[in-house]
């Protein structure tokens, strides 16, 4: 059976989502999409310039992709709502990743304001994907407010430190009925695989590609790791044991019963 991620009525095959803010050239987005098969690409509306012929980032995103505009630069719900509406008007479609970041040093989001924006934008018919600090209670409120998926951070943006928030995000994955997409801080394909093994709906990556020697090949590696992690999750990830175990632990089991 085909494994499809469904968000906002859209069926998505690739669970490798792409961030675009740090690429050395806009044309690299297309190359990365082509080699990795990414279908969801996020762009900051603040960088979208529809008035320019050669500088419009949207022209570098293949038509097959879903554009997920983000509200980068918003410091509160009001600004995020305004940016989301402008994004729709600018032709970025209906998907909006809400980023409300009142902290420029650590770039940690404000869950409270994000929730407010989610509520308003979901009512306006947006497919809302809030970027958030991992928090089960708040994530449940996001679901109730109409979020299509939630995007907890794996570690600090740009840090490449991996899936540091695993404990809380794993609980979110178990308890929340919409996709949980791990965003930010995922530094290596093995980190991405780990997120997917734990049941994440998808993983979003940008810095890890840009800080590698070859972003295009690295994107392919991430895409493969995401697939591997996903298959692993679907196959039922085995639990870990403290000591060594024989590969046939039931050998002699029946005889023991018969003798007893």
């Amino acid at each position: 059976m085909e494994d499809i991620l469904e968000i906002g009525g859209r069926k998505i095959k690739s669970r490798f989502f792409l961030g675009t803010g740090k690429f050395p050239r806009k044309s690299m987005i297309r190359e990365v999409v082509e080699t990795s098969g990414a279908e969801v690409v996020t762009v900051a509306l603040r960088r979208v310039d529809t008035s320019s012929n050669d500088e419009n980032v949207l022209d570098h995103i293949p038509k097959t992709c879903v554009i997920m505009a983000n509200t980068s630069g918003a410091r509160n719900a009001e600004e995020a709502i305004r940016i989301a509406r402008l994004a729709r008007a600018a032709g970025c479609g209906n998907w909006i990743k809400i980023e409300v970041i009142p902290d420029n040093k650590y770039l940690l989001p404000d869950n409270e304001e994000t929730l407010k924006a989610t509520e308003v934008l979901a009512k306006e018919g947006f497919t809302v994907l809030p970027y958030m600090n991992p928090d089960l209670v708040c994530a449940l409120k996001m679901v109730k407010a109409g979020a299509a998926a939630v995007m907890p951070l794996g570690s600090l943006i740009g840090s490449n430190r991996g899936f540091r928030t695993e404990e809380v995000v794993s609980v979110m994955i178990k308890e929340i009925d919409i996709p949980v997409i791990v965003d930010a801080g995922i530094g290596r394909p093995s980190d991405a695989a780990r997120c997917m093994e734990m049941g994440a709906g998808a993983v979003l990556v940008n810095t890890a590609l840009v800080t590698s020697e070859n972003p295009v090949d690295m994107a392919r590696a991430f895409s493969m790791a995401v697939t591997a992690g996903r298959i692993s999750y679907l196959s039922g990830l085995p639990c870990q044991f403290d000591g060594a175990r024989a590969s046939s632990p039931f050998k002699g089991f029946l005889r023991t019963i018969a003798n007893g």
Partner: protein
Amino acid sequence: MDSNETFYKLYSENKNRFPGSLPLGNIDDSAFRVLMLREVTSGGLLELLAASSDSVIEVAAERAHALTVRNFGKVVHLYTPMYLSNFCDNECVYCGFKKGNIIERKTLTLDEVRRESEFISGKGLKNVLILTGGSRKEAPVSYIKSCVKVLREKFNSVSIEVYELTTDEYKELIDAGVDGLVMYQEVYDEDMYRRVHLSGSKRNYEFRLTAPERALSAGIRTVNIGALLGLGDWRRETFFTALHAAYLEKRFPSAEISVSVPRIRAQVSSFEPCCKVTDRNLVQIVTSLRLFLPRVGITLSTRERASLRDMLLSVGVTRMSAGSTTRVGGHTMPADENRTEQFEILDVRGVDEIKEMLKGKGYQPVFKDWI
């Protein structure tokens, strides 16, 4: 604003830290130790600035490069300055526009502003920095506000580099569409400040020092600070610029803070810098700032020659001006012998050339970065 709550207090507490707290023993060994640590503290910054050997600066540059790519990507923001007026009531010994200089003075009419605006935006730029001299009479807040309204028709981001304003005045300009402030302290050393700012409202050290925090209290999004390198000891000036940026970052976490590293250039008054800042020093300044302030933007203007700017890109610069002129109306009006520049520009490349240079070096030029 109570000076007990402003950066002036922090400055006063730290002003005697120099040079007394410089490391004892081998300064390069100390700097190497700092480079091994996970985080650079203000003490570590002093040690990085004190270092002198090539090998320390090179290791620092390597780290600064990696940190910049991680935090900003391979992206450089472009803007251009537009001079609105060169009338000035201040007597700053180093400035081409100072009151006592006999030069042709002009304030652009709104039609002239519109022409400059059309010319600059035609180059693809979406971020403009408007400048005036220090004359409230010739370029009042109401005039700046009218200019901002004209400019917002073409630009997504308008920053101001004008005389020091009150919180309410900043608020007025922010409401009119200003999102960025550029305010150089020129020299943090308070004694030197008084020696080079002979008269005019700019002579008030504390009012200028606290202007960035007034603008931030009023809700401005971005603030760019800096010291005019050459007016005071560069190590000390860099240290206080960094301390100031860290203070603003902490007190206004939602703001985007940047620092500039302008070296004093030749201008009409033929003022001789008090302190020499070599190219090598500039590399050390940029790398030290980056390591101490990993998230702060670093701006490098056309004051520096093209080859040096291109080189400094890789060690931490995130913002550059392009197609600059420091003359009132300089984008659209022919050069006039009398209407002088504020200072001399060394990198005279146009916007397209800068764009191609960045692309060639594997950097994405960003023209638009706000709504």
